[in-house]
C-alpha cells in the first residue's frame, strides 16, 4: 500500500515538473563590456536573477514550457528571448543595446542657448537670471551676459550679432510679444515687462532658429511659462522703487494667480542723483491675472493677462540750442492677453493652440506737439506635432497676425493695418541617436506689403563624444520693415541669411561652447533723400566663446563669454555702409557667483568690457567714423536668505558700476558740429534694494 501511495506522488510530482532547470548566461553591451545589475526575469513568474559585476547570472526554475526571458538594465533598452523549458540547463549570451532618450541624443545647438529648470544642457536657470549682478532680475539684461548679445544702455532690447533691436522678437508660449519692454525714455534702456519667475524655460537663439517662428532677422527669444504652482502662497516684494504682491491659489487641477504692483522712481532718484531733468519721475502700476487648468493628464490650458500704466515726463537738452530744453512726456497703457492650450491627441499626436491680444498706447508731448500712438495685435496659432519615434517628429502649423498701428500728431492722424499669415512645417529626424537633422520651411504673406516669402531652414547636429557635439545651421529669415516706415508706405520684406557652425562640450559641471557665424543682410529698409526703399544691405560675421564652470570652486559658479563681431551695413538714414553704434567689436562678460553658507548669502558680480561704439560726427566725412572709448562695468549683487516671521525671505542689494567707470555711449551733435552732448548713464552708480517674501511656504517657491 505504501508503495502505491508513493508511486502516485512520484507520478504526480513528475507530471507537475518539480525538476529544476538551471538558466545561466552573460550580459554584455555592444562594446563587449559586462553589464552589472541587469534584471533577468522569467516573464509571469518570480524567477530570475541579477547579473554580477562580470555580467554573469544564474538561477533555477521549476517552470516548464514556452516562456519569455526578459532583461532589463538602467541605461539599456529592455530586450527578451523566447525559451522552451524542458528541465535542461540553458546557457545564454546576451547583448543589450544602449537606451537612447532625449537627454542622451544629440541636440542641435547652433545659435541657441537653452535656459530653464528641467532640461539638461541648460545654460541659465530662472534663478540664475534673477541673481546675475547688474541684471536686477531683468531677463533681457541677464541674457546680455551671453555671447552674441551686445550690452545696451541707451536703447531697449536685445541687439544680437550686429542686428538692431527690431531684429529680435520675443515669444511667450509661442505667441509674439509686440511690446516686450517698458516705455523707452530718450537715451535710456528700459526693462522688460516680464518677471523671470513667470517662466520655467527660456531659449535664446542668436541665429538659425526654428521655422516655427518668424519676423525676426537676427534672434528669437522663446519664453515658456510655468505650469501649476504647487501650493497656495502669497508673495510680497518691497523694493527701493516700489512694491508688489501676488497671490497663488491652488485648486486640485487648476490654479489662479493674481497680482499687482506699484513703482515710483521719485524717492530713489532723490537719493541717487540723476543727470536728467525730470519733471515727472517714472511711475508705474499694473495688475496680472493668470489661470491655469490641467485638462487631463497631459493637457494644459493657460490664461495670462496683464495691464499696466506708466507715466513720466522730462526735459531733454536741445542739441541745436544747448541753452534750451525740449519737453518730453509719455503715458503708456499696455494690455496683454495670452491663452494657450496643449494636449496629446492619441499617442503620437500633440496639438498646441494659442490666441493672443495686445494693445499698447502711448501719448504725451514731444516739444509742443501732442502725439498719440496705438499698437494692436491679434494672433491665432495652431501647431500639430506628429511623433515618428521616441526622438523624431514632424510639426505642421499655421498662424495669423492682425497688426494695427495708428498715430496722431496734433490732430493729424494716420494708420496702417496688416494681416500677416504664415504656414510652416519642420521635421526633426534622427538618422542615428548621434546624428540629427532639422529641416523646416516657413512661408508668410503680408496683406499690407502684398508680398509673400519662403524661408527654408536646415540644421544638423552630430555627437562627437559623450558630452561633445558639433552643429551646423543655415536659414533664410524675413521680417516686415519697422512700423515707423510701414505707416508711411508698404515696402518689401527685409531679409537675412544665416550660416552657423557650433561646437559644444557640456556636462553637469562644465559647459564650453565655440561658435562662428556669417550673416548676409539684404533688402533692408533705407530712408534716404526723402525716399523709402528696400535697397539696404550688410553683413555680420563673428566668433563667440562661452565657458561655464560650476565645479572647480566650492559653492561658486562662474561663466565667461566673449564675442567678436565684424559688421557693416547700410540701412535707415545711413548714406553709406558703416559700422552701426550697436556693434562693439569685442565684448567680454565675466559673471561670478559665490554662496557663503555661514552667512546665508550669495554674492554675485558681473564684469563687462566692450570696445567703443561708433557715433556720427558731422566734422568727419566718414559716416559713423568716430568711436567712443571702451566700456567697463562692474556690478555687484548681494542676496541674503533669511526668515522673517518664519516666512522665507530674500533681501538683496545690488549696485551697478561700483568702481565708477566713466562710460560714454556716444554723442549727439548739433547739425553744424559746433556743439555735442555726451550720451551717458543717468547716474554713474546705481543702487537697488529689495526684499522678496513668500508666505505660506518655508521654501523658496517663486
Amino acid at each position, binding site marked *: *500500500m505504501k508503495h*502505491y*501511495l508513493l508511486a*502516485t*506522488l512520484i507520478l*504526480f510530482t513528475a507530471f*507537475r515538473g518539480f525538476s529544476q532547470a538551471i538558466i545561466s548566461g552573460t550580459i554584455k553591451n555592444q562594446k563587449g563590456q559586462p553589464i*552589472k*545589475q541587469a*534584471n533577468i*526575469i522569467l*516573464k*509571469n*513568474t*518570480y*524567477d*530570475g*536573477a*541579477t547579473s554580477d*559585476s562580470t555580467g554573469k547570472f544564474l538561477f533555477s526554475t521549476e517552470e516548464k514550457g514556452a516562456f519569455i526571458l*526578459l532583461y*532589463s538594465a*538602467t*541605461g539599456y533598452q529592455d530586450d527578451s528571448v523566447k525559451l522552451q523549458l524542458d528541465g535542461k540547463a540553458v546557457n545564454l549570451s546576451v547583448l543589450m543595446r544602449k537606451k537612447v532618450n532625449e537627454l542622451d541624443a544629440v541636440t542641435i545647438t547652433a545659435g541657441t542657448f537653452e535656459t530653464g*529648470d*528641467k532640461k539638461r544642457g*541648460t545654460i541659465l*536657470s530662472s*534663478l*540664475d537670471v534673477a541673481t546675475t549682478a547688474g541684471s536686477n532680475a531683468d531677463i533681457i539684461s541677464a541674457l546680455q551676459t551671453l555671447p552674441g548679445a551686445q550690452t545696451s544702455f541707451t536703447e531697449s532690447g536685445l541687439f544680437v550679432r550686429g542686428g538692431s533691436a527690431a531684429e529680435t522678437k520675443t515669444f511667450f508660449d509661442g505667441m509674439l510679444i509686440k511690446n516686450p519692454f517698458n516705455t523707452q525714455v530718450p537715451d535710456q534702456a528700459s526693462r522688460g515687462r516680464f518677471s523671470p519667475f513667470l517662466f520655467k524655460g527660456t531659449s535664446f537663439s542668436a541665429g538659425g532658429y526654428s521655422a516655427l517662428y518668424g519676423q525676426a532677422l537676427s534672434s528669437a527669444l522663446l519664453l515658456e511659462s510655468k505650469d501649476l504652482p*504647487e*501650493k497656495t502662497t502669497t508673495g510680497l516684494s518691497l523694493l527701493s522703487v516700489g512694491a508688489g504682491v501676488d497671490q497663488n491659489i491652488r485648486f486640485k487641477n487648476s490654479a489662479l494667480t493674481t497680482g499687482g504692483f506699484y513703482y515710483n522712481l521719485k524717492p530713489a532718484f532723490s537719493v541717487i542723483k540723476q543727470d536728467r531733468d525730470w519733471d515727472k519721475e517714472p511711475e508705474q502700476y499694473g495688475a496680472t491675472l493668470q489661470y491655469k487648468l490641467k485638462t487631463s493628464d497631459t493637457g494644459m490650458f493657460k490664461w495670462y493677462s496683464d495691464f499696466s500704466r506708466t507715466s513720466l515726463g522730462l526735459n531733454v537738452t536741445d542739441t541745436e540750442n544747448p541753452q534750451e530744453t525740449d519737453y518730453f512726456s509719455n503715458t503708456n497703457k499696455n494690455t496683454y492677453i495670452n491663452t494657450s492650450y496643449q494636449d496629446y491627441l492619441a499617442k503620437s499626436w500633440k496639438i498646441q493652440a494659442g490666441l493672443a491680444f495686445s494693445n499698447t498706447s502711448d501719448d504725451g508731448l514731444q516739444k509742443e506737439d501732442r502725439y498719440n500712438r496705438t499698437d494692436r495685435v491679434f494672433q491665432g496659432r495652431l501647431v500639430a506635432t506628429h511623433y515618428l519615434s521616441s526622438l523624431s517628429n514632424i510639426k505642421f502649423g499655421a498662424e495669423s497676425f492682425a497688426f494695427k498701428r495708428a498715430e496722431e500728431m496734433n490732430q493729424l492722424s494716420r494708420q496702417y493695418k496688416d494681416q500677416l499669415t504664415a504656414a510652416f512645417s519642420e521635421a526633426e529626424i534622427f538618422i542615428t541617436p548621434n546624428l540629427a537633422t532639422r529641416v523646416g520651411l516657413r512661408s508668410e504673406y503680408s496683406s499690407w506689403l502684398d508680398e509673400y516669402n519662403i524661408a527654408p531652414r536646415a540644421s544638423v547636429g552630430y555627437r562627437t563624444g559623450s558630452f561633445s557635439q558639433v552643429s551646423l545651421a543655415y536659414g533664410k529669415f524675413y521680417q516686415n520693415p519697422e512700423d515707423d516706415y510701414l505707416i508711411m508706405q508698404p515696402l518689401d520684406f527685409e531679409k537675412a541669411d544665416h550660416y552657423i557652425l557650433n561646437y559644444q562640450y557640456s556636462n*553637469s559641471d562644465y559647459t564650453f561652447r565655440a561658435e562662428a557665424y556669417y550673416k548676409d543682410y539684404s533688402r533692408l529698409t533705407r530712408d534716404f533723400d526723402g525716399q523709402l526703399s528696400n535697397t539696404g544691405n550688410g553683413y555680420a560675421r563673428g566668433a563667440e566663446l562661452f565657458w561655464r564652470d*560650476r565645479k572647480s570652486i566650492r559653492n561658486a*559658479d562662474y561663466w565667461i563669454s566673449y564675442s567678436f563681431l565684424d559688421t557693416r551695413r547700410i540701412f535707415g538714414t545711413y548714406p553709406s555702409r558703416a559700422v552701426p553704434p550697436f556693434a562693439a567689436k569685442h565684448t567680454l562678460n565675466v559673471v561670478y557667483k559665490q554662496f557663503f*553658507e555661514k552667512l*546665508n*548669502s550669495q554674492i554675485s558680480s558681473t564684469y563687462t568690457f566692450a570696445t567703443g561704439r561708433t557715433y556720427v560726427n558731422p566734422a568727419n566725412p566718414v559716416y559713423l567714423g568716430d568711436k567712443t572709448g571702451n566700456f567697463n562695468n562692474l556690478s555687484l549683487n548681494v542676496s541674503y*536668505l*533669511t*526668515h522673517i516671521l518664519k516666512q*522665507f525671505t530674500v533681501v538683496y542689494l545690488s549696485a551697478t558700476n561700483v568702481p565708477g567707470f566713466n562710460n560714454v555711449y556716444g554723442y549727439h551733435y548739433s547739425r553744424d558740429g559746433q556743439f555735442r552732448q555726451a550720451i551717458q548713464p543717468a547716474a554713474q552708480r546705481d543702487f537697488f534694494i529689495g526684499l522678496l517674501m513668500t508666505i505660506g*511656504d*518655508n*521654501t*523658496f*517657491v517663486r
Partner: protein
Amino acid sequence: MKLIQLNTIVLLLFVSFTSFAQSEKYQLAMGKGLQLLQSAKSPDEFAAAANHFERIARAENTQWMPSYYASYCNLIAGITGKKENMDPLLDKALDQIAKADSLSAGNSEIYTVRGYIEFMKMSIDPMNRMSFMKSAAASLDKAIALNPENPRPYLVKGQNIFYTPAAFGGGKEAAKPLLEKAATKFSTFKPDSSMAPNWGKERNNELLAQCK
C-alpha cells in the same frame, strides 16, 4: 477501495496545496525579498533586492508592495551608490512608486517614499531642480494627511530638513521637532502585516542623536 480513497485524499490535498500555493509563493518571494533588503549593505546588494521585488511586481499586477519595495530598494541603492548612477536609479524608483500608487491610491507609505525620492532628485542639482523641493514637500504633507500615525513621513521630512541648508529653512534645529514626533509615532506604530513597511526607526534614532 481504501487505497484508492487514500490516494484520492492525498491527491486532493496536493492539488489544493498547489492552488493555494500562488499566494504562499507570493508570501515566500516577498519574504525572501525582505531578507535580501535587511541583509543588504552595498549598493549592489540593494539593487539586487530591487531586482527581486521588480520580478514579483512584474508578475503580480494587483499587489502594491512589490513595486513599493522595488522603488524603496532602488532609492537606497541610488543614495548609497556612485553619484553618477543616482539619477537613473531614482528615475526608476519614481516609475515604480507611480505603479504602486496606481495599485493602491491614497497610501501614506507610498507618498512617503515618493517624497523621499523627490528630495533626493533635488539634491543632485539643487540650483536647477527647485521644483522637486516643492513636490517632495507636497508628497510628504499628503503622506501625513493620509495617515497621521505613520512615523515615516515625519522621519523623511525631518531628514530632508536636516540636510537642507539653514538658509533655506533647514538645519538640525528645524529638523529636531519632526524627528522627535517621528520617534513617538515609532514607539506606538504596529505594521499591518509582517510584510508591510516597517523601516526607519533606527535611522530616526541616528539622526536624533546628531541633533543633540
